[in-house]
């Protein structure tokens, strides 16, 4: 095994410091007792966490984002699992085109998707409608689920399914009793990844949300462009904590490196 030299380790330390610096600063400033963005040198305080609850708009947009994430992640699983089965199991005309269509949101900038959805929704008279917002998020997060479902199906031992069929199980039973449990880590990993991506999405959502359906990232962006106080740090620290918790869960069920490093 080759070892890293001192120069390499110094470089590594600097990179890790660079990566963690803004996150650490946010988490520290969130606990400041002062009125300004400052480090909590003189004791810790939870006042800015409490301040969040004096801003009902933040609480509402948090609920919006939560509901949006839950719905769009669940719907994208409902689309990606059958689609993944079809793409993995069957060869049919247009299979590659369908696959490319499902993955296309990955290469279209979210900015472009945002203005495109805005135009469609405006023509439909659906601007600011929550269910259309969900639909737009489903489009953005489905590719992530599909990739994980395809990877899970790819690594599946087909002979187990064949054995069940030979032993008289119906195709439906084979799916519910054999296939689904075996690809469950891929599905649940995909669901969580979809939820996080929907929950964090800003660039597209800022075009298609209305004052009633504002999501948390959009609210935070608007707030940060106008005024900056330690409450932003408190909200951000909560989001970091949520993400960290989700990361631990993802790591347990699927291996985070596998999900993020991804295999097509």
């Amino acid at each position: 095994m080759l070892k890293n030299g001192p120069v390499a380790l110094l470089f590594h330390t600097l990179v890790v410091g660079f990566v963690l610096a803004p996150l650490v600063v946010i988490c520290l400033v969130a606990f400041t007792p002062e009125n300004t963005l400052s480090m909590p040198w003189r004791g810790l305080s939870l006042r800015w966490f409490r301040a969040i609850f004096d801003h009902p708009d933040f609480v509402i947009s948090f609920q919006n984002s939560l509901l949006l994430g839950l719905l769009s992640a669940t719907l994208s699983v409902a689309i990606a699992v059958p689609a993944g089965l079809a793409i993995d199991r069957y060869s049919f005309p247009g299979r590659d085109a369908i696959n490319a269509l499902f993955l296309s949101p990955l290469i279209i900038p979210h900015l472009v998707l945002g203005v495109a959805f805005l135009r469609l929704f405006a023509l439909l008279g659906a601007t600011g409608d929550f269910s259309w917002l969900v639909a737009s998020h489903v489009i953005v997060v489905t590719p992530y689920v599909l990739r994980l479902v395809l990877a899970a199906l790819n690594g599946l031992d087909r002979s187990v399914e064949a054995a069940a069929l030979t032993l008289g199980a119906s195709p439906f039973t084979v799916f519910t009793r054999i296939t689904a449990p075996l690809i469950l880590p891929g599905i649940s990993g995909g669901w969580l990844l979809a939820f996080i991506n929907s929950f964090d999405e800003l660039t597209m959502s800022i075009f298609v949300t209305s004052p009633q359906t504002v999501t948390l990232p959009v609210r935070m962006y608007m707030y940060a462009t106008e005024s900056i106080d330690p409450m932003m740090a408190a909200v951000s620290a909560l989001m970091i904590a949520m993400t960290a918790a989700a990361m631990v869960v993802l790591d347990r069920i699927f291996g985070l490196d596998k999900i993020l490093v991804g295999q097509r």
Partner: protein
Amino acid sequence: MTTNRVTPWLLVAPGAVLFLGLVLVPLVLTGVLSLHGYNHTTGIQPDFTLAHYRAVLSDDYYLGIFWRTFRIAALTTLICALIGAPEAYILSRMRDPWRSVFLLVIIGPLLVSVVVRAFGWSMLLGSSGLVNQAMQALGLPSTRLLYTETAIVIALVHVMLPFMAIPVWTSLQKLDPAVEAAALTLGASPFTALRRVVMPQVTMGMLSGSLIVFGLSASAFAIPGLLGGRRLKMAATLVYDEYMHELNWPLGATIALLVLIANLVIMLAYNRAVEARARRTLG
């Protein structure tokens, strides 16, 4: 066996309909929108014109923003390659548990909202931020960092680093560490082993990482929006302003589509170049 011809279509149909209706149709509608005229008092006109494309492609104001966008995205890509590739190599030489821990540290921030990370950098780079405090402590003059291109590049590098580290890491996983050890045993200097054994693998990962980083940086919104201020616009913040403040949707649609077209053209050209290179070097 007729069911086998129908089954796959039944399985993909709901998703395919949704994606056709919500990806292709809106893009076409946006294309049509960009061809409509615009009048500041009466709004979107029913006529068709190429005036917006002509205006955007000949006006120094827009060209300046496109040039800035390209410059910032290119610089971000370069810095990400210079930091991300060696870091991925260092990670690949670590032992567990450090390797998995630091892999998570490097790529985990990917899951933290961009708004949060942009806000973190605006605190670090602000006039009374930690970076300026540290510089003053070292006796350096305090500099204005926030609302400069430097601030945008620093934060973009932070956001894009995982997208460079991941492909380099993936391509390094395909390299058997024994090959590098063998090169050393056979008398190659560490530098030669690095250049002849590791670099070809790293380069392939770096090339695909660069494409992702460049594309995402060129259309980045939150970072220039929060760290560039009102004056330092990039393509995405320009589109947002046209839509939300100027209310000139056709012009905004034109700029957004130009961003998409530039993205796709660069992607295709780059892929072709990388494939040609791969054929040359790998035979």
